[in-house]
């Protein structure tokens, strides 16, 4: 049985979908069978991010309604054999929690990882998505508003008795952390009383990932750390401040300021 992981945040726009796609791509690149589930109908969906929006014929709603078989709704990612996507085009308002949960379980039978991209907020959409998962990754940025929402979600998740809950701190700028203008990953851990699963740096090309390039961008390196954490291979979180330390780091900081 594969692992069902909810990618959630409370606040929208903090990078759930991005983190979900990046983690999924990386796990799949390691040969894990991964399905990304879009439980969020907003702009910047998973299908768009992966360039698969044209390939979606049926979606999660159709599966729940019995309009098609689960297999028919899954979209294969052309560049990595072990990655697929269950898209959402229709609003999921009508899909009940039980049906959603059953679909997630079925997916877990044939995949190593089911990553569920949760809608923002803590209402029905959250409840439905959380009910389908056994683990959660709470994505937040180091900003106070995002952290407040993340804290609420962490509180709610306590009621779900998840097997594991970790926080992914996204859009971290090592230079600002060093200058004290941004909370560090350690600060976030203490404030939220939570385990940090990963730290993803701010990267202007966050979405420009190409499946074939193995470009060693800072973000790509950080995603590999996150991936190792999720696989239980290491507890080390990427240190976004490292490249801004020392002499070369000081120069980088100067450049970023300009």
């Amino acid at each position, binding site marked *: 049985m594969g692992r069902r992981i909810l990618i959630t945040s409370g606040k929208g726009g903090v990078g759930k979908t991005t983190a979900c796609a990046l983690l999924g791509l990386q796990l799949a690149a390691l040969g894990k069978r991964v399905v990304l589930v879009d439980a969020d109908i907003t702009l910047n969906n998973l299908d768009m991010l992966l360039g698969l929006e044209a390939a979606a014929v049926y979606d999660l709603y159709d599966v729940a309604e019995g309009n098609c078989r689960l297999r028919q709704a899954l979209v294969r990612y052309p560049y990595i054999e072990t990655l697929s996507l269950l898209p959402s085009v229709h609003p999921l308002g009508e899909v009940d929690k039980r049906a959603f949960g059953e679909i997630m379980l079925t997916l877990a039978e044939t995949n190593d990882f089911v990553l569920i991209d949760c809608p923002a907020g803590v209402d029905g959409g959250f409840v439905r998505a959380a009910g389908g998962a056994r683990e959660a990754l709470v994505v937040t940025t180091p900003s*106070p508003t995002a*952290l*407040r929402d993340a*804290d*609420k979600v962490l*509180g709610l998740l306590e009621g779900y008795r998840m097997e594991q809950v970790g926080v992914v701190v996204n859009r971290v700028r090592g230079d600002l952390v060093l200058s004290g203008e941004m*909370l560090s990953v350690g*600060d976030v*851990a*203490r*404030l*939220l*009383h939570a385990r940090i699963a990963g730290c993803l740096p701010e990267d202007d090309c966050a979405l420009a990932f190409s499946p074939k390039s193995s470009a060693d961008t800072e973000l790509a390196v950080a995603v590999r750390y996150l991936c190792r954490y999720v696989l239980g291979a290491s507890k080390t979180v990427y240190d976004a401040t490292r490249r801004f330390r020392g002499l070369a780091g000081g120069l980088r900081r100067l450049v970023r300021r300009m």
Partner: protein
Amino acid sequence: MKDRLQRVLLQDRMAGKCNMLPMLKSDLEGLLADYFDLDKESLRLEVSADEDGSYRIVMRARAVRMYR
């Protein structure tokens, strides 16, 4: 920034737990009343967060006498 955020998070958490503070206060009042003839008006309860993320819980109360 950290301190302020910590206070805000603490308030959020206590408000989220169905008004935890009054409930905790009345629970403590009941507990103490088994041992003391408590001046109920005097009971003060404060929860604050420390820098390391732990909580400091301070309770102050006055009792007229102790039950023997």
